[in-house]
């Protein structure tokens, strides 16, 4: 671009400011076309890297990049992946601790330009004398107690502290509720506080909230903040703001509202952040829903009177409080949304999250759920969001929850499409939320989608994005059953061993049951038998670890049947022996199949063995089996007598009092 301009400039003089057009009297070769030369583009520093990155998709066979690429070090379950990432982070914290303990070894600065985050940090106050600068330093280092002490010392010495410094001291106290920041503040991510807030949200959703259950600091009456506030010779609006917001944050709504009236009495105006806190305060009061809503409307009217423009947080706060009003909050929520649109404030993902929570509070759609989710998704199609509210990352989880309860696959695809637009993937949230989202999505796919596409999603998502629960795998197996694609089952079993489901007995029972239910072509039967042998070995290794062997009856039945059908008669007979050992009863169909097998291999000894087993368990089918043996097989006289004995003993026990036979059966169980 530059070269062309330079070359052109060397010719006849032209004007290249902005978009230029060729002057008309140029020559015969120029027709009347106007050529608009665009302005020079300025590229971002990482534009080339971004362009290259856009050509590469996620590798579905690799573990997330945060893990080391080694089979021993790749996590095999969500618990492991979380523990590895936490271990790595804790290693980094240990390193930072050492670095800040001995900063003199890390002072040499060879990086050009200077990299501030790689220098050691100083957490102790340097200025020792009693002065306002020392107070400001302590405030900057977030030392609550030290700054309060310094303030008191300054007052005792008689020096007046300036208004800004007092205000920043109040800020510090109100933010931390007059307690020290958590001890590992410098190392901890904000994960802990997020979890506390989530827990507190879930707590407050229950109608009866006990005061003792409150988490985090509560505002004690007459604490340091109030004391200093009272001592201040002059207060400006900022002081009131911080106090109100601190009180609301630490659950003292009554004092906050009182302070607000005091603020109005002093003929000061509140700013938008204070109003947001006050709205929260009114929702915290112990009143009925209508009263609370009326109070909020009052506040909003006062806000309009004081000519304070509401922002996104105002509306989000209103919706957050309306969430707790259950059915009453639906109409006000829609009104709020309309007001937001009228003011031209763009809603964030958190807004839609609150609306979804409000309208889809109960899981069951029996009451006739609303269609608001469809409107929301139509609205959001193709939009890219940037983080504006701490609750933005809860949207996708609640949206997928709704899709799952409505059993709507198209909607789920829309939600997933929104997740993949632009940078919206950042809003998926922490690992447990991501797992929840993908579990629900995958379950919905298994339920509703064609099997080929489901299997494609399976390969795409698992295990590179999330580790499936055993329930998700069971859903997948049922989907395979419905679509008659049972040949994939051995592959699924092999995969699930890698995700830590080797000892999950409900999964194993489901697999065995599906494999053993029907007859299949021989190659498939062989594959199934191999799979069954594998599962059997997992049961055995499980037994080695536990004292009491505990194989479910269904598994024993299925494994025996599968061995039999694949022609592995030896192992099948061994399985029969195991029944007695584990005190489980073989099913009638199983015994019939064994009888068929004995007939096919033409061995009356085996047939008699079966009858003996049946009689040992005192099964009612014993007689039928004995009959069959007599008719189908060519047996000798002793064998006939033995058979007669067996059936006699069986029928004897049958004809005995029912309690006896029940007792036998119970023993057999």
């Amino acid at each position, binding site marked *: 671009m530059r070269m062309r301009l330079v070359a052109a400039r060397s010719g006849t003089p032209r004007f290249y400011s902005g978009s230029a057009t060729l002057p008309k009297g140029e020559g015969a070769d120029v027709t009347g076309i106007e050529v608009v030369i665009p302005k020079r583009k300025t590229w971002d520093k990482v534009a080339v890297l971004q362009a290259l990155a856009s050509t590469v998709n996620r590798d579905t066979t690799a573990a997330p990049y945060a893990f*080391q*690429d*080694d*089979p*021993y*070090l790749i*996590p095999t379950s969500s618990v*492991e992946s979380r*523990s*590895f*990432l936490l*271990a*790595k*982070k*804790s*290693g*980094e914290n*240990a*390193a*930072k601790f*050492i*670095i800040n303990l001995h900063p003199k*070894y*890390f002072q*040499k*600065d*060879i*990086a*050009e*330009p200077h*990299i501030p985050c*790689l*220098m*050691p940090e100083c957490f102790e106050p340097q200025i020792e004398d009693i002065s306002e600068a020392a107070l400001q330093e302590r405030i900057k280092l977030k030392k609550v107690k030290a700054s309060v002490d310094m303030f008191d010392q300054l007052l005792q010495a008689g020096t007046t502290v300036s208004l800004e410094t007092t205000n920043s001291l109040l800020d510090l106290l109100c933010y931390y509720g007059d307690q020290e920041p958590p001890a590992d503040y410098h190392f901890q991510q904000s994960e802990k506080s997020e979890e506390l807030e989530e827990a507190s949200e879930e707590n407050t959703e229950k109608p009866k909230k006990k005061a003792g259950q409150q988490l985090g600091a509560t505002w004690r009456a007459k604490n340091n903040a109030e004391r200093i506030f009272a001592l201040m010779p002059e207060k400006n609006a900022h002081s009131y703001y911080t106090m109100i917001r601190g009180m609301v944050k630490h659950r003292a709504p009554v004092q906050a509202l009182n302070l607000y009236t005091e603020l109005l009495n002093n003929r000061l105006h509140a700013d938008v952040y204070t109003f947001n806190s006050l709205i929260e305060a009114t929702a915290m009061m112990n009143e009925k829903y209508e009263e609370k809503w009326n109070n909020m409307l009052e506040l909003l009217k006062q806000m309009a009177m004081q000519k304070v423009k509401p922002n996104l947080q105002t509306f989000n706060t209103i919706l957050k409080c309306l969430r707790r009003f259950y059915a009453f909050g639906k109409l006000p929520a829609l009104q709020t949304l309309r007001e937001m649109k009228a003011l031209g404030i763009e809603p964030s993902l958190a807004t839609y999250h609150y609306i979804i929570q409000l309208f889809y509070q109960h899981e069951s759609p029996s009451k006739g759920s609303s269609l608001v989710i469809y409107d929301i998704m139509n609205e959001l199609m193709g939009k890219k969001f940037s983080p504006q509210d701490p609750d933005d990352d809860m949207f996708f989880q609640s949206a997928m929850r709704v899709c799952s309860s409505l059993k709507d696959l198209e909607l789920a695809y829309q939600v997933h499409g929104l997740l993949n637009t632009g940078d919206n993937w950042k809003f998926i949230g922490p690992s447990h939320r991501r797992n929840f989202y993908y579990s629900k999505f995958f379950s919905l796919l298994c339920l509703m989608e064609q099997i080929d596409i489901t299997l494609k999603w399976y390969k795409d998502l698992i295990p590179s994005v999330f580790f499936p629960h055993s329930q998700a795998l069971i859903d997948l197996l049922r989907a395979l059953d419905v679509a008659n694609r049972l040949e994939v089952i051995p592959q699924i079993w092999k995969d699930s061993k890698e995700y830590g489901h080797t000892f999950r007995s409900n999964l194993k029972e489901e697999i065995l049951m599906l494999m053993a239910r029907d007859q299949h072509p021989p190659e498939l039967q062989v594959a199934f038998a191999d799979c069954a042998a594998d599962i059997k070995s997992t049961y055995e290794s499980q037994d080695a670890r536990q004292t009491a062997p505990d194989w479910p009856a269904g598994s024993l039945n299925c494994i025996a049947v599968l061995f039999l059908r694949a022609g592995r008669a030896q192992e099948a007979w061994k399985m029969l022996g195991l029944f007695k050992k584990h005190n489980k009863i073989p099913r009638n169909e199983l015994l019939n199949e064994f009888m068929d097998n004995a007939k096919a291999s033409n061995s009356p000894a085996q047939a008699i063995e079966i009858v003996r087993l049946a009689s040992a368990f005192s099964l009612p089918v014993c007689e039928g089996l004995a009959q069959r043996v007599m008719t189908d097989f060519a047996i000798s006289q002793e064998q006939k007598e033995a058979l007669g004995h067996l059936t006699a003993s069986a029928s004897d026990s049958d004809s005995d009092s029912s309690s006896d036979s029940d007792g036998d059966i119970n023993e057999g169980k």
Partner: protein
Amino acid sequence: MAASMCSRGLGPWVLSRSHALPCAWRALHVSAACAKNRAARVRVGKGDKPVTYEEAHAPHHIAHRKGWLSLHTGLLLGSALWFPLRYGNLDGQDHAAERTVEDVFLRKFVLGTFPGCLADQLVLKRRANQVEVCALVLRQLPAHKLYFLVGYSEALLSHFYKCPVRMHLQTVPSKVVYKYI
């Protein structure tokens, strides 16, 4: 041998064989000593000493049968031209020594941080302004402890050298023996 030659040529300057005292005597060596080369070699034993591929080959096999353990461009002309971030001046020829000193520190540091876990020498690669430490690790420690050590060493070394330091681990069940010597 040297003493006898000396005495033959120049007369009795060296106390050669004294017929009176049949004791041990010390000769004066004046030729240059030619000691055996012992650098980076494992001496041959009885056949029961396991050595890895790296140890089994002497330094003269580098670039023939072995690669380098430490890769950087400190020896190229003007190598510092493109990355003044780390190299300060732009002349570029005298930084190999500094890289080597850093390497020594890195090797000692990682050797100590992963006690008894390293199966072989580290491979250090310098790429742009990053240092990549590639280590072959035994499976002695459970995986989360290895991650802790990785996070710790990456953070500490990054702060020390003021550049991103990354660790890449590869685990093996035991030291990979090439032959027994």
